[in-house]
């Protein structure tokens, strides 16, 4: 699926989303990195099984559960089931400002180009699309505003 990360279109996007009913990769055999649900990740960590370094979040997930774990995470995927559900923006901002998560914060699901600037300003720095969007349009949307009322998270995709 097309991925825009740090302002670059990335050809290779190896991370695979693992549903809760799918088995975890076997040790030493995994060919691709996976992201699992927050719940599953916490359960694994509690069993001291550090097998997964990326998670995906549902809108209802409480990101504060990651308080002791953000340092060990490479990728957090904020899944927008419907683009009008704004909980993901709070999750993203809490991850960045409260938990100081500095890894990749990726939006997936129902992403509309016109929302991407808000997402970026909430701290999201990569976008996974289900189909190829209009790259020129996205560029215009992301760079149209030269100023904002909230000095904001430095626009990571500007890099």
């Amino acid at each position: 699926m097309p991925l825009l990360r740090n302002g670059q279109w990335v050809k290779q996007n190896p991370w695979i989303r693992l549903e809760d009913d799918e088995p975890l990769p076997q040790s030493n055999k995994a060919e691709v990195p996976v992201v699992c649900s927050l719940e599953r990740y916490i359960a694994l960590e509690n069993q001291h099984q550090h097998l997964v370094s990326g998670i995906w979040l549902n809108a209802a997930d409480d990101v504060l559960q990651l308080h002791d774990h953000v340092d060990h995470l490479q990728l957090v995927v904020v899944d927008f089931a419907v683009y009008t559900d704004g909980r993901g923006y709070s999750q993203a901002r809490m991850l960045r400002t409260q938990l100081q998560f500095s890894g990749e914060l990726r939006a997936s699901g129902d992403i509309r180009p016109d929302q991407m600037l808000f997402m970026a300003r909430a701290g999201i720095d990569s976008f996974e699309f289900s189909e190829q969007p209009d790259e020129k349009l996205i560029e215009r949307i992301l760079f149209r505003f030269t100023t904002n009322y909230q000095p904001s998270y430095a626009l990571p995709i500007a890099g």
Partner: protein
Amino acid sequence: MYQYTEHDRSFLKERVAEFREQTERRLRNELGEDEYKQLRLRNGLYLQRKAYMLRVAIPYGLLSSAQLKKLGHIARVYDKDYGHITTRQNIQYNWPQLEEVPQILEELADVDMHAIQTSGNCIRNTTTDPLAGAIADEIEDPRPWCELIRQWSTLHPEFNWLPRKFKIAVTGALSDRAAVQVHDIGLRLVKNTVGETGFEVLVGGGLGRTPYIGQVINEFLPTQHLLTYLSAILRVYNLEGRRDNLYKARIKILVNALGIDAFRDKVDAQWQHCNDIDDTFTQTQIDELKAMFPAAPTLGTVILRNASDDTPETPEVNQPDQMFSNPLFNQWYQSNTRAHRDSGRRIVYVSLKAPGQPAGDITADQMESLAALADQYSLGEIRTTHEQNLVLAHVPVNALFDLWKALGGLKLATPNLGKLTDMIVCPGLDYCSLANAGTLQIYDQIYKHFDNLDYMHELGDISIKISGCMNACGHHHVGDIGILGVDKGGVEWYQLTIGGHAGNAASLGQRLGRAIAKSEVASAIELILKAYIELREPYESFHESVQRLGTTPFKESVYATAA
């Protein structure tokens, strides 16, 4: 008032360009209607029953004369020569063409105006006391704080997709004219025991289907924490507010489901961590905002002047006492003007409830002429009120007679402020796609039925508020008499409530009885008022009478006769 900087202006230009492109994408069908709808709503554009409606923001109800003039120009060029003042102190145009809306927004941007976040599930226009900076009972001018909230809430990265719309009101006066108890967040500027200024914060008030009076979540919030605290409330709401049912999505439902104490705990837990640069401000920032709202130059005689003072001769020396010999002027003076904190000035209400004119409507000519009057008599500023009238806040006392005559010539001097015909009326079935029943005809019917100034002044202040559906845009819950339009098998009926109140001790009206047929509404109100006049104690307001007597005598008066 607030002066736009180059940053404000470039931001606005970019926002207009963004919406222009979004609209072009829509017209080329590159953007679906559902998705475009969310974008246009956040630029004030609704699709109504017959046409698009554009709601233009009037931040905290304050306009310069140049802005009002532009609003008149827009009414003339892009609409049918009028606009409608809303209960959120904004202005609506009912007939814009979709293709022309970006152009309208561009014209608005020329006078530092916009339609951002006047609809959609985001933070709406912050409202305040229309007499701010002019009334004597003020602890502090609320408008710099409103401007701070405006800037902070404009395209906030986190709070643009809330469960539902979100409304904030601020008052800085002892007497609440901003209805802070019926807002998602109400802010009251208060002093603590050592004389510091802070905010009393109320949360979870609101009208609509399930009306609630707001509850105190914080008795004294030091002013420097305003934005972090608002963020904490908004974040708890954004994460936990209901999204499964449109009618249960407002913050009032969450606050009441959790209970105020549990809700407060959640907010406090978030607040510990809310220190993001986006939600903080510096003392310099607020000081600069405060400097943009200076007091009106004093004209009154109470101030002793130094002989060497180069202030020009005070005009009130020539105050034409003679004007008070005109009984019609006296009637207007007593009904439509209020004491200013400066004895040399007077606050003048401009009634938008003239006979034969829909409540809250104002024509292009009226807007342009009023802009000129504001320049001449009121330091070039005009305010809108949530009761759908206008205010000239700083009129020199000696100019009142001339202003009265000029307003009279524009049909803007109806002496009915706060009186029976000064009704709040939502647009109703004629415009709004949500409405169940017409409201404009009811307003007309009542207006004509009570078209007797002497009777109206004998009654005293009384508020009638009319909503065309449960969404309560006409604030019927907090009217002395509330009128709610309901649909019963395709026929319009009207449910009456009495005893509502929007002032300091807000209360919700109680149902009087079964709904009234459309043709009978004014007669029923006459019976309610007949009971009031018979039963009231000297100087007892309608609200006080209902509190003392309950609804029974009024119910009997209406339904006994009807039976």
